[in-house]
């Protein structure tokens, strides 16, 4: 079976495709969320060092991973849009930004609420935390810059530049725990000692990562559909949707 992928580079085709994909990813997100929370709260045992407080990991790590991953995907599509002048790629980058910002905020928030009982402080200006905060500012900068420019194509281009420049922050976040002395722990999975404990905790965390993935895809497709409809409102296919031309 051959699929003509170029067909979906047209905003109109993608609009319909996204509409069909959203229910699928929504269902998967709910399934993974329920399974992940069940494993996280009823299967994964108490941590020998951190007690029950470690259970924040099941949202903190997926949110932190998504915050970085979504930024790279956003910058990629923004870059493609800038280089090849493809409208849909730029719209997609715009659709990703708020969800990326949301996950960044969640990672910072849950980190603070985890840091307070474990480190005795909500916040420290160390490398990991500061670079993650900069990530939040990059998302906000991208969104406000695009919102400030009236012409959508110019907004796409300006946003792409800021997104691409900001990519340099991603390896800084990722390697910050190795490069600098930091309060933040290194790889979270290696903290556990007993392999049996590690398994249930790790599985719970990975299922929550999948839930975050599916949720992100569903909500980004929803937002992409809004953006497509808004930007293409003058076109004939939207008019056809309205039923005025037949």
């Amino acid at each position, binding site marked *: 079976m051959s699929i003509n992928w170029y067909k979906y580079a047209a905003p109109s085709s993608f609009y*319909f495709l996204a509409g069909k994909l959203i229910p699928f990813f929504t269902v998967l997100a709910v399934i993974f969320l329920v399974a992940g929370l069940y494993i996280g*709260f009823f299967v994964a045992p108490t941590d020998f060092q951190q*007690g029950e407080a470690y259970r924040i990991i099941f949202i903190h790590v997926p949110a932190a991973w998504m915050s970085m991953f979504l930024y790279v995907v956003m910058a990629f599509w923004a870059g493609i849009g800038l280089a090849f002048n493809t409208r849909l790629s730029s719209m997609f980058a715009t659709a990703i930004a708020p969800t990326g910002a*949301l996950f960044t905020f969640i990672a910072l*928030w849950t980190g603070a609420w985890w840091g307070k009982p474990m480190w005795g402080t909500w916040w420290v200006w160390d490398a990991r935390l500061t670079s993650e905060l900069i990530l939040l500012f990059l998302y906000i900068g991208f969104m406000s810059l695009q919102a400030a420019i009236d012409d959508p194509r110019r907004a796409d281009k300006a946003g792409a530049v800021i997104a691409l420049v900001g990519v340099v922050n991603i390896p800084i976040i990722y390697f910050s725990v190795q490069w600098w002395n930091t309060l933040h722990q290194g790889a979270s999975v290696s903290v556990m000692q007993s392999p049996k404990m590690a398994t249930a905790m790790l599985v719970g965390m990975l299922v929550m990562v999948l839930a975050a993935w599916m949720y992100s895809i569903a909500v980004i497709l929803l937002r992409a559909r*809004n953006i497509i409809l808004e930007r293409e409102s003058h076109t004939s296919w939207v008019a056809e949707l309205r039923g005025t031309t037949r």
Partner: protein
Amino acid sequence: MIWDSWSDFFNMGGYGLYVWGSYLATFICVIGEILMVKRSARTLRQQLSLTKESILRERKDEATS
């Protein structure tokens, strides 16, 4: 079983405030995002005067094409 009772579960070994503070905030953020996207979809459809009927036609069009 990890938890002796529901109150034990909500207490989270004394870390209840921090664990539930994290989960509640995340829940509010996610629900808030969904509601915002859904609301802008609704306003947009109204602005473009896309009715339920035209959305149904969209599905039919896709099925036939």
